């Protein structure tokens, strides 16, 4: 049975429950200071009054939730090709979205929604954030139908907006063509994001340390006694243990995080678009339309290369820079073959690396100056002023210098720009090697810039702006860069190729 969206309709009736908890959450957030006061004065207040009051409030919220549900309607206006949503109890809001402006339709399910058996449907547009719309409770079948209707607007686009890239129009086959296994996710968890997890752990430990110190300052723990416990030999030993424990904890956190976030990751082909769905607690599903993709990047490090996994990131056209991070769609743990399949679907062919541009050696020199010379100068300036105490950390210096030098040298060696007629690929990174792919027709603006003391060396910067963020290449051959800028401009200005 075809669902009819042409008449205004409400959400699923059980949606009242969602509305109820949503409203509670909203009010709790607004009124939490009062709640805190109540909790502390719990013993002083008349229990019956409190009980009655709470009941009354809950009842009130229930009524509000019901009214919210009653007043929320949505329908598809076939005449004007618009999606119309009306909401609000006293202040009515009517949101109208032109169908061809819809970027993404996400179907999500929170834990609560999973219990009740409804889904949330969110509509993303290219416009400002306020225009975004979400339907909080809708049955899965209806959600899928509506999503298909909302996204089935290719033919209704204004003539100019029809994408030029010929994407192979494979019929919608519901069988996922990529299914990321638990093993792959495990591999990803073990091999990536060390630094992010380290940051999380450090933040956690510092909070605890801070609290312990505050505790001890209040006299609960005798500090001398506490410090006396720890002697030098024990310190070295415990540092060793700490490093091992830290490393283990990082890996565990990574694995758990990756598993929870990306559990059951499947990619399905649907009318030339990609349909992704993943998540253990919050099942998220996202659609990616090839013509809206701006930057595709894939990252992998040495271990991941050996295990044949990589992380793919897809950036689509966004309204503001703030949303850039949020908008990047991640596909963790696919292998090279799957990557090529996805790239082929997005671009129509597999990007090849062509002409190679290298950065000037000054990039390395400058990086060494910034990351090694300056910090060392700072360190010795402080050490000489602060006296002997500081110099006992001298052993850190060579360790740091060697580590930083390795990172910088590898980073420099991997820093490359590859250019072919159809693709611009930037490779960068010291450990995690990242490849960012842009199609020249997706460029919004090109900027070249040169420091005045680089004029004689003929080197300069190139920045490529797209609707999904920018990409810079530093200190390349300026003449060559300008030549390519001219070529890309020629390409953009002689064709009506569409960037979205």
């Amino acid at each position, binding site marked *: 049975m075809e669902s009819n969206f042409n008449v205004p309709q409400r959400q699923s009736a059980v949606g009242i429950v969602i509305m109820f908890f949503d409203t509670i959450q909203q009010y709790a957030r607004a009124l939490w200071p009062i709640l805190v006061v109540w909790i502390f004065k719990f013993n002083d207040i008349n229990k019956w009054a409190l009980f009655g009051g709470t009941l009354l409030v809950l009842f009130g919220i229930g009524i509000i939730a019901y009214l919210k549900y009653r007043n929320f309607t949505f329908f598809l206006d076939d005449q004007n090709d618009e999606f119309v949503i009306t909401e609000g109890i006293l202040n009515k809001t009517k949101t109208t979205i032109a169908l061809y402006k819809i970027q993404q339709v996400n179907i999500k399910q929170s834990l609560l929604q999973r219990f009740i058996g409804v889904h949330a449907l969110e509509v993303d547009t*290219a416009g400002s954030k306020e225009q975004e719309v979400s339907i909080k409770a809708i049955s899965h079948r209806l959600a899928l139908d509506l999503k298909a209707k909302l996204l089935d607007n290719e033919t209704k686009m204004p003539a*100019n907006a029809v994408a030029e890239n010929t994407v192979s129009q494979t019929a919608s086959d519901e069988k996922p063509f990529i299914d990321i296994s638990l093993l792959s996710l495990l591999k990803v968890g073990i091999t990536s994001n060390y630094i992010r997890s380290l940051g999380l752990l450090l933040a956690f430990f510092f909070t605890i340390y801070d609290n312990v110190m505050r505790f001890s300052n209040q006299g609960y723990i005798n500090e001398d006694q506490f410090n006396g416990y720890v002697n030098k030999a024990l310190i070295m030993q415990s540092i060793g243990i700490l490093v091992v424990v830290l490393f283990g904890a990082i890996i565990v956190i990574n694995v758990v995080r990756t598993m929870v976030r990306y559990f059951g990751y499947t990619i399905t082909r649907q009318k030339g678009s990609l349909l992704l769905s993943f998540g253990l607690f919050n099942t998220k599903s996202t659609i990616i339309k090839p013509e809206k993709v701006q930057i595709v990047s894939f990252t992998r490090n040495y271990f991941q290369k050996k295990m044949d996994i990589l992380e793919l990131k897809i950036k689509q056209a966004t309204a503001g820079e703030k949303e850039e991070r949020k908008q990047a769609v991640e596909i963790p743990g696919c292998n090279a073959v799957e990557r090529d399949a996805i790239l082929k679907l997005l671009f129509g062919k597999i990007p090849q690396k062509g002409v190679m541009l290298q950065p000037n050696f000054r990039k390395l020199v400058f990086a060494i100056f910034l990351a090694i010379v300056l910090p060392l100068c700072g360190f010795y300036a402080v050490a000489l002023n602060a006296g002997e105490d500081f110099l006992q950390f001298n052993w850190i210096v060579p360790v740091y210098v060697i580590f930083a030098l390795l990172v910088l040298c590898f980073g420099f060696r991997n820093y490359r720009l590859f250019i072919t007629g159809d693709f611009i690929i930037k490779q960068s990174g010291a450990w995690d090697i990242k490849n960012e792919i842009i199609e020249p027709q997706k460029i919004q*603006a090109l*900027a070249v810039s040169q420091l*005045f003391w680089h004029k004689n060396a003929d080197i300069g910067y190139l920045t490529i*702006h797209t609707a999904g963020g920018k990409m810079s290449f530093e200190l390349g051959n300026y003449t060559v860069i*300008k030549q390519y800028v*001219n070529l890309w*401009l020629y390409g953009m200005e002689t064709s*009506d190729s569409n960037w979205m």
Partner: protein
Amino acid sequence: MENFTNETIDTSQLPRFEEVPMTPLHRSYWKVVLITWAIVFVIGFTAFGLAVAFIEEFKDNAVRVAVPAIVGVAVILLMSYVSFRKKAFAFRNHDVLYRHGIIATTTIVIPYNRVQHVALHEGFISRIFKLATIQIFTAGGSSSDIEIPGIEKEQAENIKQLLMGKIQKEL
């Protein structure tokens, strides 16, 4: 498909953006910059004067503050002059070029078929000199938008019309 050819493009024969003669900003715009800074300086020095007059401890240190302040003013003026001289723009058939920057000279190029919308902005001081700023927005976010100040009001209107025409045609 039959009429489709794909010749190799001779990249050396392409029009070069770096050789386009650029139009500098209108001469009066320097006065606008000067007046803007003058207002800032007048406020700053008034505060300084008041501090010297009313705060006892400030009197002894007045020279120590005044000398760097004057040097600072000189540097700011010099920098804004260089910056004024560096700024230049050009409108080609298919794109707009804008050059700016003191230490790093940046040239940004936006093809007309990527322009989202155009705005004309008149500052309070600019209006006295009949100058206006043209703002050109793309979908690339604020980093790829450009603002060309110091264009004569009439010319700016014309440019805006031209750009709007180009955008319309592209659509």
